[in-house]
């Protein structure tokens, strides 16, 4: 029997949702301040209006639904899934007010793409966008990469138990430190430390590449946020191609890889346990899959004779591949070039890389390395069972921070999420094919959206069907949250309708 949710459940959810919205509202003050500093009057008003709307909504929810009860698992999951939808709508307001998005749906698309660290965009005339709006586009990637509710946990939520349920709901099933509040703050510490270092490195590269100092550091900060959070937005319409700089590309590759690493691994590296890099199952799997998918991509590019030399092939092929594998979505080629110049084999390499993703508890999307590693270990175990005598006891171990025995529960969980991702990739592909796009292009764009990558082969445009935009928004949302909180929300609505 399904139990119908009570008013008390709605109040608890509303209260914590209000807290998350309040946290989000205050982040809008950053671009508003930049707009004032740069004398961008219109954008300053856009952000002030958006801040007011968010603050009013947050205050009304926290006051109308005031409770002093900790969240249970179901409520925590629903708060997370709803927070991301509300954040998408509120984050889209300043974008829409700028006039650079053709409709509110397009602004919502970019807002979800930003929060979910995807990087697909429907922005118009990006090269004339204000500094404030550009900062917001990248800031939402930084917020979404760390996790929207992590802000609320870090600054607004008192109870540790409720905080942990929201933390898990946001696809972070690993605690780095014993306390979830300390974990959230550590994630911010890592991110802000790298933000400073990354901005300095990219800013210096920009200056050496002929950019003015302010622009170089502004672009540096924006590109860092998009790279570390494996987002993929960039301040200019040409994305990373705008800079025409190999140094810039090398630095962004390093940042993308850092973003694709588990925060728990970052912690151990920071604590001096550097051997973990070569022992950890996720890192080993990541190196193997990067190597394998690059071989496929390079073979495809060489076969089609796309680039005039080995250096150009490596620079273009490896960059798009690593960008896809880490789930970033930076491009140094035009979207149409994927379609018109890259062979199907090369595209298959990139699609495979996008589908696999980075590490768990990182800022990447997709199936993720731990699950891929576990599935391969399980496969190896089964093969051993067949080969060895029947009486032999076969055990499989893997190393992830500590050495563990592989059990069926872990394998089942890894396979379940993997299957869910494959179904999600398939959903977008089907909708794309329904609207008349070629199969491989539809698969490419769908995988890019669901795995929160952001590479585009040209389907994502303001003129694409609204239903396809909604499909991609759903894919970005479900892919980022790794399904559990989305399934819980769907279950909640079913219980509202059918429960007794």
């Amino acid at each position, binding site marked *: 029997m399904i139990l119908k949710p009570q008013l008390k459940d709605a109040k608890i959810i509303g209260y914590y949702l209000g807290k998350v919205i309040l946290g989000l509202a205050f982040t809008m003050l950053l671009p508003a301040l930049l707009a004032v500093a740069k004398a961008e*009057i219109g954008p300053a008003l856009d952000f002030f209006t958006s801040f*007011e709307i968010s603050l009013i909504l947050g205050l009304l929810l926290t006051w109308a639904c005031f409770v002093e009860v900790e969240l249970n698992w179901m409520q925590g999951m629903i708060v997370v899934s709803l927070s991301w939808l509300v954040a998408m709508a509120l984050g889209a307001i300043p974008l829409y007010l700028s006039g650079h998005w053709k409709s509110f749906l397009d602004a919502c698309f970019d807002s979800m793409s930003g929060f979910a660290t995807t990087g697909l965009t429907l922005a118009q005339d990006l090269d004339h966008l204000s500094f404030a709006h550009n900062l917001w586009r990248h800031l939402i990637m930084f917020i979404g990469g760390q996790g929207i509710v992590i802000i609320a946990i870090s600054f607004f939520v008192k109870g540790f138990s409720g905080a942990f349920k929201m933390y898990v709901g946001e696809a972070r099933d690993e605690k780095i430190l014993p306390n979830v509040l300390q974990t959230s703050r550590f994630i911010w510490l890592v991110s802000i430390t790298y933000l400073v270092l990354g901005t300095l490195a990219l800013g210096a590269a920009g200056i050496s*590449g*002929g*950019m003015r100092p302010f622009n170089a550091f502004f672009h540096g900060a924006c590109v860092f946020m998009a790279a570390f959070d494996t987002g993929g937005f960039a301040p200019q319409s040409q994305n990373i191609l705008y800079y*025409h700089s190999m140094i810039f590309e090398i630095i962004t590759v390093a940042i993308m890889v850092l973003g694709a690493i588990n925060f728990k691994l970052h912690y151990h590296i920071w604590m001096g346990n550097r051997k973990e890099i070569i022992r950890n199952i996720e890192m080993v799997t990541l190196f193997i899959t990067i190597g394998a998918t690059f071989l496929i991509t390079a073979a495809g590019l060489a076969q089609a004779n796309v680039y005039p030399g080995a250096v150009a092939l490596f620079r273009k092929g490896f960059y798009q591949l690593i960008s896809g594998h880490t789930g970033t979505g930076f491009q140094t080629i035009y979207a149409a070039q994927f379609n*018109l110049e890259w062979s199907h084999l090369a595209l298959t390499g990139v699609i495979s890389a996008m589908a696999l993703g980075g590490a768990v508890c990182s800022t990447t999307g997709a199936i993720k390395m731990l699950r891929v590693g576990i599935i391969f270990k399980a496969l190896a175990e089964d093969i051993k069972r067949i080969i060895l005598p029947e009486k032999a006891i076969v055990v499989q171990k893997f190393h992830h921070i500590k050495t563990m025995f592989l059990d069926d529960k872990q394998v089942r969980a890894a396979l379940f999420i993997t299957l869910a991702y494959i179904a999600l990739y398939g959903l977008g592909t089907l909708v794309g094919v329904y609207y008349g796009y070629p199969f491989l292009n539809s698969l490419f764009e769908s995988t890019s959206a669901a795995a929160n990558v952001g590479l585009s082969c040209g389907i994502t445009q303001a003129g694409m069907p609204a239903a396809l935009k909604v499909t991609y928004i759903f894919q970005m949302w479900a892919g980022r949250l790794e399904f559990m909180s989305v399934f819980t929300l769907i279950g909640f609505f079913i219980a509202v309708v059918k429960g007794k």
Partner: protein
Amino acid sequence: MKCPLINKRILFERGAKPRVENNKCSSRLTSFARRLFVLVFFYTVYFTNYTVFAQPVSSTELITRAKQYDGQEVIYQGEVVGEVMRRGPYAWVNVHDGANAIGVWAGLSLIQDITYAGAYQVRGDIIEVAGVFHRACLEHGGDLDIHAANVTLKERGKKSLDSFDSGEVATAVLLLGVLVLIWILNQLRGK
């Protein structure tokens, strides 16, 4: 005296410089030159595979038919966006034609006239670039770019003043009123 090559009469007179007089056969020269030009043109087109596109080509055309334009001299027109990035005696200028921006690699002497680059509230200079198009430039790591041979300023860009929508101002003031009201209600509830 009659010059056999150019079919013109050269007159030598005592005490004066030699002067050229067109004779009645000058129309033959024009006809010969025309034929020669047509021959050279067709030879160039059919045998050397080198084409000069006299009309500006769009970025979409260049990207979608990159193989056809690869290595050809093209004319491309658009707005300078971002900023001019100097690299030694050259610079990268990203030029947006309304659909896409393409990187133009140009010598500094060619881009001295560029004053405005498109950004927020700035319309960049409109320039016309004549140069060689590369689908995957070997010199620049496989970038799709144009190496400029000539850059012409077509239209000077300009800065415009920022403004705001009066309707949005009214909305912001109204929302501020709502916020103040919520704050007052909260204060009253607290008492």
